[in-house]
């Protein structure tokens, strides 16, 4: 008899625990307030990707020159001036439209 009562109590207790757990798992209502603040920090992450991604795309066209040291840039400009003078000199020696607009090999403009 005692055994039967003990099994019965255990069963009722187990049923109660299972019911509570089922209720908690299937409750559709708003999540309790302590959980919500933990989700909030995620919000800034969603704002960052579009902004940074856009910035990363925009920056490269602005910065290629900055990868070239100033000394190299100056040497390129000087070389460009020499090539342009040589081309202009050729034009002066035999002036023609084609001589004036010959293509340059200068890396400064190509």
């Amino acid at each position, binding site marked *: 008899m005692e055994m039967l009562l003990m099994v019965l109590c255990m069963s009722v207790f187990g049923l109660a625990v299972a019911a509570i757990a089922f209720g908690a798992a299937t409750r559709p209502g708003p999540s309790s307030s302590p959980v919500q603040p933990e989700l909030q920090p995620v919000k800034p992450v969603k704002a960052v990707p579009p902004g940074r991604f856009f910035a990363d795309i925009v920056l490269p066209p602005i910065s290629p020159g*900055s990868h070239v040291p*100033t000394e190299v*840039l*100056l040497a390129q*400009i*000087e070389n460009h*001036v020499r090539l*342009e*003078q040589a*081309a*202009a*000199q050729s*034009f*002066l020696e035999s002036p023609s439209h084609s001589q*004036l*607009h010959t293509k*340059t090999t200068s890396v400064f*403009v190509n």
Partner: protein
Amino acid sequence: MAYEQPELLKDLTAEEAQLILALGTRIAVPSGAFLFQLGDPAERLFLIERGRIRLTLPMQIRGRQEDVVVEERTSGQTVGWSALIPPHKFTLAATAPLETEVIALPREKLRKHFAANPAVGYKVTLNLAVVIGHRLQLFQAMWLRGMQRMVEKNSA
């Protein structure tokens, strides 16, 4: 060593050329030194006897002013013709990339010499016009080439 007639003294007799050169002072310009700076009063014309002179203009590159070479003049050529052309201010800077010797001809001495010897003044002025005209034509062609590139780039 045979000394070629400087471009400014072309078509002058040896005696006429010597009289002009006698008006000048020989100056040694150390490597890297300025012969004149942009905006300086142009009191003297220079004939390059030995070495080389770089003519530069200032350009803003990455927020810094850099001297960019626009022309190089060598032995026998003339620099500083602003000394004879008003407003007598240098419109370029001139530096010596290596040890260079020039003959500096003061404007006032030249003016007096030309006044006393008009035929010589005429020949020298013609030679100077060739130097100035060549610079003008060269830069005109360079400018047009640059403009053409801009047009092609902007209309592409």
